[in-house]
């Protein structure tokens, strides 16, 4: 039993899932679900489809090179069974996973580093430039605080109507 990788999105394919397509030149394409399969049939390039791992790696969204990836390599020659080795391997897998997850998180944090400052700067600018949508500049000059004006009651027009009614 082997877990494979989906050719399109690079997620793991568990047993009992997905479709394998064998081309005439004997290259095997494995897909984890029909979404990937249909995209493949449409001849889409996974490097251009945003949600695939290939895209993310290519555009630097996810970590590409790391020593943790070296541990997991497909070996074609089987090793003779050794209980200690098996035990150690199992423990090691867990540790390696942890390390890899930490590193990925670090990569992500690094990528998002300057976001907060940028957002704040942008917000400031917007506020300065478009405050006229909320408060007329004349009013702003008088009252530089940002309290928004409330809708005032209608002016003398109605009063004059009432007067007229009374008159006639």
């Amino acid at each position: 039993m082997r877990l494979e990788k989906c050719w399109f999105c690079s997620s793991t394919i568990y047993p009992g899932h997905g479709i394998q397509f064998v081309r005439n030149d004997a290259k095997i394409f494995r897909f984890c679900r029909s979404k990937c399969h249909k995209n493949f049939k449409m001849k889409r390039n996974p490097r251009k489809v945003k949600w695939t791992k290939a895209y993310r790696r290519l555009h630097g969204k996810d970590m590409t090179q790391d020593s943790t990836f070296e541990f997991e390599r497909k070996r074609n020659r089987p090793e003779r069974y050794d209980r200690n080795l098996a035990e150690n391997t199992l423990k090691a897998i867990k540790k390696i996973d942890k390390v890899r997850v930490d590193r990925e998180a670090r990569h992500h944090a690094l990528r998002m580093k300057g976001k907060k400052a940028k957002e704040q700067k942008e917000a400031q600018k917007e506020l300065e430039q478009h405050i006229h949508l909320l408060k007329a500049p004349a009013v702003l000059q008088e009252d530089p605080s940002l309290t928004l004006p409330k809708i005032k009651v209608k002016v003398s027009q109605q009063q004059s109507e009432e007067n007229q009614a009374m008159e006639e």
Partner: protein
Amino acid sequence: MVQYNFKKITVVPPGKDFIDIILSRTQRQTPTVVHKGYAISRLRQFYMRKVKYTQQNFHEKLSTIIEEFPRLDDIHPFYGDLLHVLYNKDHYKLALGQVNTARNLISKIAKDYVKLLKYGDSLYRCKSLKVAALGRMCTVIKRIGPSLAYLEQIRQHMARLPSIDPNTRTVLICGYPNVGKSSFINKITRADVDVQPYAFTTKSLFVGHTDYKYLRYQVIDTPGILDRPFEDRNIIEMCSITALAHLRAAVLFFLDVSGSCGYSIAQQAALFHSIKSLFMNKPLIIVCNKTDLQPLEGISEEDMKLVMEMKAEAMKTVLGQGGEPTNDEGVLLTMSTLTEDGVIAVKNAACERLLNQRVEIKMKSKKINDCLNRFHVALPKPRDQKERPPCIPQAVMEARAKEAAEKEKRKTEKDIENENGGAGVYSASLKKHYILSNEEWKEDIMPEILDGHNVADFIDPDILLRLEELEREEGLRQAVEEDDDFEMDGKELTSEEQEALAEIRKKKSLLIQQHRIKKSTAESRPIVPRKFDKNKEFTTKRMGRQLSVLGLDPSLAINRARSRSLSRKGRKRERSPAYDGGDAMDVDVDTPKKKLRARSRSLSLSRSRSRPPSEVTPGEGFKDSAQKVKAIKLGKKSVKMRNKDARNGRGSNNDVLQSSRQLPKFARSYGGSSSIRFFIRRFMVAASKEAGNAFWSDKFTFTSFSLPGYMLFWQF
């Protein structure tokens, strides 16, 4: 040696099908077209040909049937008797006889009718003669229908008879039911006969083949025979009797010494004595079966006596053949088919005796003399008295001895399997012979998948070292990281500012939405200038609201807007009579405020009421109300006729009514039946009917025809 193969007989069709086949063939293979204008000789020839053709076909097919079915007298008496036993000989001959007579009858009919046809004088007469001829032939066939069905059944059964060669070396197995005959044949040949605990499991003869001394022997399994008088025997038993009677074979009489077949040894002995006449000139061996249940030595005295009697009888046959009189080894044998103990010995004995007998007979017959001079067995003459045994090297002898010993000692996996309960119960442990550093690890189960990874991909002898390195790296990196962890936060927005920002964003998105709506509808809707807003969108109230939302005081702007409004200034002068007569406006700025106000108010009031249809509002696009009225009239006129006819429009499925009388009276917009319009309408109806038909038959499109019709129509 003729191989009797009844599988090659052609299928006999049932009566009806027979007739159908022949008649359809006649119809297909002879010319079909004939007219009464042809010359009379041609007509006669036409019909004569049909009659003769039909007769020939019948003759052919019936002849094949007659020839292919075997004649019981001409075939080997074994088959003849077998077929007689299975299907009654008389019945069979009768059926074939009927087919023969049918053939002759048909020939006669055809001859007669051909003679009559020679003098047929009209088409009709010739035709009826032919019909009569064919009809009579078919009746003949219909009458032999049951015979044909019977022959078909026989054919099917014959095809399934076992192919027994009566002339070759044969071993026959007989005895009471359930004694073990079928098990024996299953053991020595590749035949797969049913073995069941009930009697008469085997209901017909079965053939198997086995080899002995490079020669092939037929082994025939028969159904069991009961001890009954000859006349009472049923068909199944008669099969075995027939086989016994006609085949020159070695006979193995099976005896069940344990009595588990349900019949005692006495009964079996009685049977033996009643059919011993059939064993003349045949090498007979008495086989005691089921010795695993009851060994031969253990039976009672009387039974032993009976068995010895039988043996004596069998010995007589040996004597009769000129074999050694004192050799009684091959006469009475014991075996058990369950444990396979002695089965091969029985087979060998039977084959040996048969072979010897056949060789003897051949030697005695004349034929051998022709070939005898071609045989010569050369034996070298001994030179001296020295013994020269075959020379085998010592090493080979030792190896042979060792092999023999090993063969005894070694235990195979199969033996282990059998010990532990057989194939279904025991499953061999495949991990037994694993070569591992530690024997305890043989039964270990290693996981293949962990947390979405394949464990096999990680297995590496120095994984621990590498893991250590990794952890060291990680530790270092973490230490470095902690130093430059936090970021400068910078200025954060206060809650007030955040609120304002949210508002700004909301307003912006609203504006964008509105703009998008306007953009999408801009092409389909004309842009009405603001001064002609019919829906009263641009009011001072609205302006006031918008300005006060921004925090400004709108009163000044509103007053200014009001003072410049049209109602105060007055509209452009109109000369239309449909307007309120007295209110013709004369703009005068100096009219007193009161009057102005009253007028403005009445005008504003009148504006809020619904307008008359001919009144033209400024944004509509009409010059004056006269134009508007005319436009409305034109529009109505264009739909008037269609509405009257209650139709959907020109392009819909216009199934024109058959006559104007089908229309309701009010919809008829043309004159009486004598009017020219009605006449033209009728023409149109007829034409469109034709068009309707043509629509489906030709590539005539409906619209292309009806359109000019309608255009004509509209002119009236």
